[in-house]
């Protein structure tokens, strides 16, 4: 346990620690008189919980320039992605438009619902990302046709940090009368995003990647452009029957506080993360066979994906025992399957095997980045010696 406590945490893309203010907010809700069911508005306890939920809804909406009525609570971004893709496709199924477009660089919580709608009769087009992990807008334009119902793409890639040109994609979709869903799990609260300016119809949100609680998220549904979608859960009237289930008031309040803090600290966070990323790259640039994945001009600085051709990431990570990092997506890090994202970006099997994702956060100290660089170098040197210093 001591070893865990002393580890330097550089896995912020996987999840973040709770901000102290978030904890206080959640404690206040749990310890106070907001424990009532937010749907039980016939008494004071319920009314108080309801008020907390609606205030939180306003806070979430304000970060993305949405109307609060357009925010539907979910258990996280995975559920929001499922609800957006399955819900829209199933509601519109009887129409003429039966094509869904996404990309191979998406998180599995987008790709698998897309595969599901394919089974339900839709045509699915998965675009290959550029070598930097982002989607080419011209390629997307070529894939859109009169049958296209939905384009679902992420804002920030969770494995390499590449940023999609959401505004251009949103304009393209609106021009072609196509719904646009954004998986904003990695970008929300870290990069500004305006759903009106970017013509976004649906957007998946979470809290735990910006110092909020796990188990809570939301789906932005543009009521004006989308109208209705079909729920994927049934059995209650909450959230206008779009997502039934008793709302978790304390988690919702925690998410709202995390969003408020993110809004205030976004610019400072970006500067700090850029400093961490540049320091790491600079300190490691002389390591032979090392390559940085993604395009430095178009990347979220909090994520740094590096490949060491010929070595195995699991051993690199094991060798740097005092640093907590991931092989790639946290959802895949306990299996031996190669990353579908890196594969789609054109990396060789050997480069994929040797890919480690460092992700920095608000609490990352510069000295921790320097220390992690040294440990990374030591680990790579050790593994190179084990393999006989082969080129």
């Amino acid at each position, binding site marked *: 346990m001591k070893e865990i406590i002393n580890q330097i945490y550089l896995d912020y893309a996987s999840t973040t620690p709770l901000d102290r203010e978030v904890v206080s907010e959640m404690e206040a809700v749990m310890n106070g008189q907001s424990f009532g069911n937010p749907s039980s508005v016939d008494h004071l306890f319920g009314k108080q919980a309801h008020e907390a939920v609606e205030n939180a809804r306003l806070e979430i909406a304000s970060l993305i320039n949405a109307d609060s009525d357009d925010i539907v609570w979910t258990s996280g971004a995975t559920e929001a992605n499922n609800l957006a893709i399955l819900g829209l496709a199933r509601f519109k199924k009887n129409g003429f438009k039966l094509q869904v477009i996404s990309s191979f660089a998406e998180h599995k919580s987008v790709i698998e619902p897309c595969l599901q709608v394919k089974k339900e009769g839709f045509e699915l087009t998965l675009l290959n990302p550029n070598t930097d992990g982002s989607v080419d807008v011209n390629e997307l334009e070529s894939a859109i046709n009169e049958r296209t119902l939905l384009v679902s793409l992420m804002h920030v890639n969770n494995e390499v940090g590449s940023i999609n040109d959401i505004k251009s994609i949103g304009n393209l979709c609106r021009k072609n009368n196509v719904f646009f869903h954004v998986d904003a799990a990695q970008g929300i609260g870290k990069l500004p995003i305006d759903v009106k300016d970017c013509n976004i119809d649906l957007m998946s949100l979470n809290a735990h990647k910006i110092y909020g609680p796990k188990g809570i998220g939301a789906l932005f549904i543009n009521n004006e452009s989308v109208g209705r979608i079909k729920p994927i859960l049934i059995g209650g009237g909450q959230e206008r029957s779009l997502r039934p289930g008793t709302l978790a008031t304390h988690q919702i309040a925690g998410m709202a506080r995390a969003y408020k803090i993110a809004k205030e600290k976004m610019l400072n966070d970006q500067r700090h993360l850029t400093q961490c990323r540049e320091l790491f790259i600079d300190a490691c640039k002389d390591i032979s066979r090392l390559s940085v994945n993604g395009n430095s001009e178009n990347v979220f600085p909090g994520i740094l994906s590096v490949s060491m051709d*010929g*070595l*195995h990431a*699991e*051993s690199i990570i*094991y*060798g740097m*025992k005092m640093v907590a990092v991931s092989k790639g997506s946290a959802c895949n890090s306990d*299996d*031996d399957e190669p990353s579908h994202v890196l594969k789609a970006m054109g990396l060789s*099997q*050997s480069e994929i*095997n040797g890919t480690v994702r460092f992700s920095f956060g608000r609490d990352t100290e510069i000295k921790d980045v320097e220390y992690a660089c040294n440990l990374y170098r030591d680990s790579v040197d*050790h*593994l190179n*010696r*084990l*393999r*006989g210093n*082969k080129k």
Partner: protein
Amino acid sequence: MTENLTRFYFEKEDHLFNLEDDKYSYLAKGSATNSQGMEIDLYFKVEESRIIDAKYNVSGCPVLIAISAFYIENVIGKKLNHCHDFNAIGIYESIEIPNHKKDRMILLEDAVYNCLGQIGSR
């Protein structure tokens, strides 16, 4: 392999094969690779049917690295006809290999058999 033992052998560099120093010293080499790009090279020096020295190179996951180092350390001094007996070497007694990494043992075994094949063919 317990966590401590895995780390101990993962970190060891005592019997690494070094091309410059060892290229004329070791008679037999056996290699094995798998589809995940992991690879082992084993080198045995044999006199009177006994392994008097052994070295290795390895690239792969921590379990593969640890069992390779453990094997090499423990095979030195063994008779040739014992060196494929992993129970005698002690790996199975000392090591708890997670189920999804059991195939690493097969990789090691393949390298050992390939090395023994080299010796047999001489």
